[in-house]
């Protein structure tokens, strides 16, 4: 048995463009334990979705993994043939998408689409697949599943469709579920229901969840561990309490400060000044330094190492001293 069901080591992803290769993710490493929920947070364009797609081998045609390894139960996914990885998809690793409105095929019934993964991976016949599908719909909290099976996606609401998507993704009892902003397109009450459902199913199916989001509220709700990404790098990772209570990286602090607080009457929303650099922008030193209020000369010149403080990895020079004080692990880069 592997303690970590998924190990990502120094993963780099690049895109082929008219101007040459652009690196979107430059060497990220993280692990996912069995039954754990890991949230990858960051702004749009920080590489979180691309990282998620690479886990399942679905990078766009012009994208490729140029370095590092993705080890799933010890097997390196980047070295598998397309046929081998196809057999893992939907079976061991599943994915749910952001837009439940467009992620279901409009010309097929819910039942047909639920039977698909069962037919592909388990070779069930229609009658047997139907039983399993009805049971799945019940598990994701859909009422009268027998009738829903005959309905088309346009007859269901957004929240229901997302439940169906989850049911399809869980059909073959995957070991990892990748959720790419599964609640972004839903309204808040439905969002809470879906998150609750995911938490509940995760325990029942013993599935690890890798959730991509930019919503700190969602993170607080579901995450066991949090990975904060900025401009293609992991700037901080740790368990959810530590990240929320003691954010160490200035970027994480900024992210948390920019969540509006409804309890304060005159709360001025704090924003992180500036925008994320473009992929082609060459930034010396720390990639966050142009927007960092605490940037020093060292930050501008040298890329920071990762410092470990209480189970908590931070890529920031400011934490060097703190980390030195403790018995810490330094991964130079």
């Amino acid at each position, binding site marked *: 048995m592997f303690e970590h069901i998924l190990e990502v080591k120094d993963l780099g992803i690049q895109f082929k463009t008219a101007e040459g290769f652009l690196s979107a993710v430059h060497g990220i490493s993280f692990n996912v334990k069995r039954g754990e929920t890991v949230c990858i947070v960051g702004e749009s364009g920080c590489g979180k979705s691309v990282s998620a797609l690479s886990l399942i081998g679905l990078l766009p045609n012009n994208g490729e993994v140029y370095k590092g390894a993705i080890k799933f139960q010890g097997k390196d996914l980047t070295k598998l043939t397309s046929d081998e990885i196809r057999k893992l998809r*939907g079976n061991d690793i599943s994915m749910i998408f952001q837009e439940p409105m467009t992620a*279901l095929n409009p010309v097929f019934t819910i039942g047909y689409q639920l039977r698909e993964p069962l037919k592909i991976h388990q070779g069930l016949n229609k009658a047997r697949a139907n039983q399993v599908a009805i049971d799945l719909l019940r598990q994701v909290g859909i009422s009268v599943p027998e009738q829903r099976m005959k309905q088309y996606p346009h007859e269901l*609401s957004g929240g229901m469709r997302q439940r169906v998507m989850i049911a399809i993704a869980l059909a073959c009892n995957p070991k990892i579920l990748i959720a790419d902003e599964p609640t972004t397109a839903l309204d808040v009450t439905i969002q809470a229901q879906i998150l609750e459902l995911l938490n509940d199913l995760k325990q029942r199916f013993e599935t690890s969840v890798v959730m991509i989001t930019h919503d700190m509220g969602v993170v607080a709700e579901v995450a066991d561990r949090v990975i904060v990404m900025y401009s293609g790098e992991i700037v901080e990772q740790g368990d959810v309490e530590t990240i929320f209570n003691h954010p160490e990286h200035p970027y994480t602090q900024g992210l948390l400060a920019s969540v509006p607080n409804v309890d304060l009457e005159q709360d001025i929303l704090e924003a992180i000044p500036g925008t994320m650099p473009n992929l082609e922008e060459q930034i010396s030193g720390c990639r966050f330094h142009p927007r960092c209020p605490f940037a020093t000369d060292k930050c501008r010149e040298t890329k920071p190492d990762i410092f470990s403080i209480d189970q908590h990895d931070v890529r920031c020079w400011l934490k060097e001293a703190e980390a030195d004080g403790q018995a810490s692990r330094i991964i130079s880069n």
Partner: protein
Amino acid sequence: MQPQTTETSVSVKVSKNEALTRRLKQFFKYKLAVIGLIVILVQIFLAIFANSVTSYSPTVQDLTHVNLKPGSPGHWLGTDNYGRDMWSRLVFGARLSLMVGFSSVIIGTVIGTLLGLLAGFYKFLDTIIMRISDLMFAFPGILLAMLIIAILGTSLLNVVIAISIWSIPSCARIVRGSVLSLKKQEYITAMRALGASHFRIIFQHILPNGTAPIIVFATMHMGTAILSTSALSFLGLGAEPSTPEWGAMISAGQQYMWQAPHLVIIPGIAIMLVVFAFNVVGDALRDMLDPNMKSR
């Protein structure tokens, strides 16, 4: 406990029948298309029951009654220059044109759809297939068909083959276009994420979403195929003169045009009506199946 979704009593009764009735109602709003449909149905009826609705063989000559005018006793549409009954020839011609039309449209559409699916889905095949079809587009259609017949020889079967080949590139191009947009849809990515094979994605998930333009193409192309068959036969490249084929009938009646104008007018009207019918029905189908034009 899971929160159950609230919409427990949603009516799930929108059955297939109801959807079909709704579609039919929509179709009947296009008056011209209804007329077209009637023409097509009449043609199909005549083609099927050709033996029962005629009292003469279309090929038997009766040299004692040549060039009879329409309305003559026993031959209500008259006879041609060999005394063959025009009504019989017209009806058997309807059977022939339908057969040629259907078979060439089916062959052309099936091959064209297949190539279009491949071209749209696989980028490396796209260039090859689309450049070859560009090459074929460079020829005027009828010339291409004539070229193919010149190679294969003159016969109705070769006309079918020629018209099929000619319709492949346009069909492939239409299908490729819809595949290009469909394959970027999130539900196709979702199918890939489920581990579906390319074959499954192309034929079970992309194709059913792209049927509307194919149906429209096939309907519209029926008219073109019938017209081209007649044109080729008229030029002497298709049916032999004795065959009851509308184009061949016009060609044969040409020299008696002034003495017996019905020899060219009757098959001419038949061709025109049928081609018109298929075109208006195809038009209506296109409007109906195109979600952007639902407002009508």
